[in-house]
């Protein structure tokens, strides 16, 4: 242990060179202590792992609904009904996709200019950058559910509050992700464009955008995927779509329906993954 913390010295051909002590070790130690320490505050008595309950719920989710007849015998609904329900979900699913699509689009359209505004290497006004980032941080601390609740309060139930909530969420997270990427780009092309007599907007268009465009595509599609999953929560506040369906199913304890919805969402996310791959691949070839 003593050796671990001490500064190392090397003797090379009679000369001495010291390797400076790495701070990373201290941070690592603090992290480990914090992690271990946090267990001390958990009441382990309450920690019961009921594996049979886990299997029970999984069974309830991915199996047609069960009935108890008058004799107390359990019978199951047909798989046909299970899949029929899944197929009928397409309408609410489409509703959700539309909501997420518009929300992600609107959020992204605002996020791209705003992220440039927040990037230190594009916006040289230190104070403006700090204020813009503070606004972003503030928006990000509000949970999407709360934004949706506020939007429902103002705009009533339905499509519109859902879109607003998704737009605001997409805007705040994409802005944050993008300005961090923008700060890592190669500034050489920007210098070259400036030396050609380009103004700020032209530098952004010709030197910055080509560098961040493929990353933007990837992020936007990723956020779209997050939004699809988040829209399940949005259903709870009356924004409609597959979330509403999920809530209804949970209230009636129709776990078979919940399971069907989960499978449909999983399939959708998989399709999205495939599309993301295709779009990025295509973008890499073109440009």
């Amino acid at each position: 242990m003593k050796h671990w913390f001490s500064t190392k010295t090397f003797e090379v051909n009679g000369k001495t060179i010291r390797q400076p002590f790495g701070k990373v070790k201290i941070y690592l130690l603090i992290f480990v202590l914090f992690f271990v320490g946090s267990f001390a505050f958990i009441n382990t008595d309450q920690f019961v792992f009921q594996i049979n309950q886990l299997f029970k719920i999984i069974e309830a989710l991915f199996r047609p609904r069960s009935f108890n007849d008058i004799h107390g015998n359990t019978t199951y609904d047909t798989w046909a009904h299970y899949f029929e329900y899944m197929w009928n979900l397409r309408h609410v699913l489409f509703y959700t996709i539309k909501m997420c699509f518009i929300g992600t689009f609107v959020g992204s359209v605002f996020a791209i200019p705003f992220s440039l505004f927040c990037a230190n290497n594009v916006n040289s006004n230190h104070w403006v950058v700090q204020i813009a980032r503070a606004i972003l941080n503030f928006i990000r601390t509000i949970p999407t559910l709360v934004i949706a609740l506020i939007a429902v309060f103002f705009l009533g139930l339905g499509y519109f509050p859902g879109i607003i909530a998704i737009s605001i969420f997409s805007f705040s997270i994409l802005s944050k992700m993008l300005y961090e990427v923008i700060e890592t780009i190669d500034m050489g092309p920007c210098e070259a464009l400036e030396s050609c007599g380009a103004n700020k907007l032209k530098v952004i268009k010709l030197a910055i955008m080509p560098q961040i465009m493929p990353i933007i595509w990837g992020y936007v599609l990723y956020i779209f995927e997050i939004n699809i999953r988040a829209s399940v929560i949005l259903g709870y506040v009356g924004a409609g779509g597959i979330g509403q369906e999920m809530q209804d199913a949970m209230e009636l304890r129709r776990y078979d329906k919940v399971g069907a919805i989960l499978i449909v969402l999983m399939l959708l996310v998989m399709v999205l993954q495939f599309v993301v791959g295709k779009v990025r691949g295509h973008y890499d070839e073109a440009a």
Partner: protein
Amino acid sequence: MIKFVHVNKVYPNGFQALTDINLEIQDGEFVAIIGLSGAGKSTLLRTINKMIPITSGEAYVDGNDISKLNKKELRMLRRTIGMVFQSFNLVKRSSVINNVLAGRVAYNSTLSTMFGIFPKSDKMLALEALDKVNILEKAFVRADQLSGGQQQRVALARALSQQPHLILADEPVASLDPITTLDVMDDFKRINESMKITIIANMHHVDLALQYAHRIIGLKEGKIVFDGPVSAVNDEILLQIYGRPISEKEKLGVVEKEALV
């Protein structure tokens, strides 16, 4: 014509990069600036198109007092001054032609640039510029597909598409291999001679500077310690610039082109 009178540059951190620079460069000259790393070569080059503003003194480029230019006037001046960099500074993900068209930005409105529209005449200019540096066939290839030498030629074509009367080159061959170096230097020479474009280049390679330039400016710790024709450079002067004698080997890039063929 470029005229510097008692120019000083002090960086915000207090480092004095240039001290009392006086110089005059006529149109059509091929000037090489030599000196150790940190002697102020890059700073001097960048003060000419005000990529770095000067602290005191007067600097004139084509009769304009550059410290008095407003933003718009500065852009109008910069669009007639090409610049080439050690690391090429191309947008690697964009096609070669788009990189060359970037040289035309200041001739077009911001709105049309935002929509990515360049006039056909600009495209022709860009293609002609590529032809002048012998890589016309690479026009629609992505920039990162090219070798270092080819990328530097694209950068040179970008500068040419500006229809400049002056090209500033900051260590243009420092990241190229010895053979490509000579090709690129030949391009500079041809541009200087046939198109009458003034060239001011920072050089690491003393022998290349002596071989291609007409005039040498030696910088040491931010001061001009030598300014004169190539013929006047001798070991004594190199000793002054570099602080110690420079052997034949240390002049770098020692290959003669004929020796390679």
